[in-house]
């Protein structure tokens, strides 16, 4: 899956930015889940999940994001998803998840000045 899915992390005091690229499906969802859990458990006030380079995401991937959102809530933090791709926005819409997530169009906007 090397070529289909990549994930990396950039941590500061204030925010942990997790950058996801490629296809998020049953094959890559477990990796995404454990990496997001680890990122959330760092305890930064802000967790940003950059999905700009995600080319495919299915219900399995959405399930992982829902789980991450709950974990962030429990830890008292805030999570933003960075999405601009119309197909992925459409997916959040048709699954009724637009209200659950804070979706922003850029990492800069998520992290703030």
């Amino acid at each position, binding site marked *: 899956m090397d070529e*289909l899915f990549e994930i990396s992390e950039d941590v500061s005091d204030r925010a942990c930015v997790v950058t996801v690229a490629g*296809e998020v*499906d*049953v*094959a890559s969802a477990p990796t995404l889940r454990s990496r997001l859990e680890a990122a959330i458990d760092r305890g930064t006030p802000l967790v940003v999940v950059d999905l700009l380079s995600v080319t495919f995401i299915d*219900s399995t991937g959405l*399930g992982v994001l829902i789980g991450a959102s709950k974990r962030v809530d429990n830890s008292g933090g805030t999570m933003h998803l960075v999405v601009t791709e119309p*197909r992925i926005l459409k997916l959040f819409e048709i699954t009724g998840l637009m209200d659950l997530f804070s979706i922003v169009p850029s990492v800069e906007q998520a992290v703030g000045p």
Partner: protein
Amino acid sequence: MTTSDRPDARDGASRSGASGDVVELSIPVRADLVVLARLTAATVASRSSFDVEEIEDLRLAVDELCVSLVGEGSEGRLALRFVRGDEDIEVSCTYHPDSGQDGAATDVTSDGLSARILDALVDEHGMDGGDGRQRIWLRKRRARSQT
């Protein structure tokens, strides 16, 4: 979600009148092979003159068929059948659990996400089962007429 036993898997070939419009793929239940179902869906759709948006819809919808049928820890095979009609594509996916495995599949409505995605992306979908196997199918029409 409509639960129905139509379209029957065997109807596919006779419906379109020729085996020339049927593609079959059989894969083991392995997370790293679901990509084959998506690639086949996208290729069949592109060969049927579906537009880019419809191709992506079918790629995701077929992925959701697989995901809906296969529960955590399942072992067995998935048999996918793609039937190209004049104006649509039908895809059915049958789960054949390994002997000793539970044949009862995860219901597509269990977490609701797959069902909502299928509702939005395809024209019709349904599920039927029996004999320890479970089958889920969809039909998606092409918007523009074939050129």
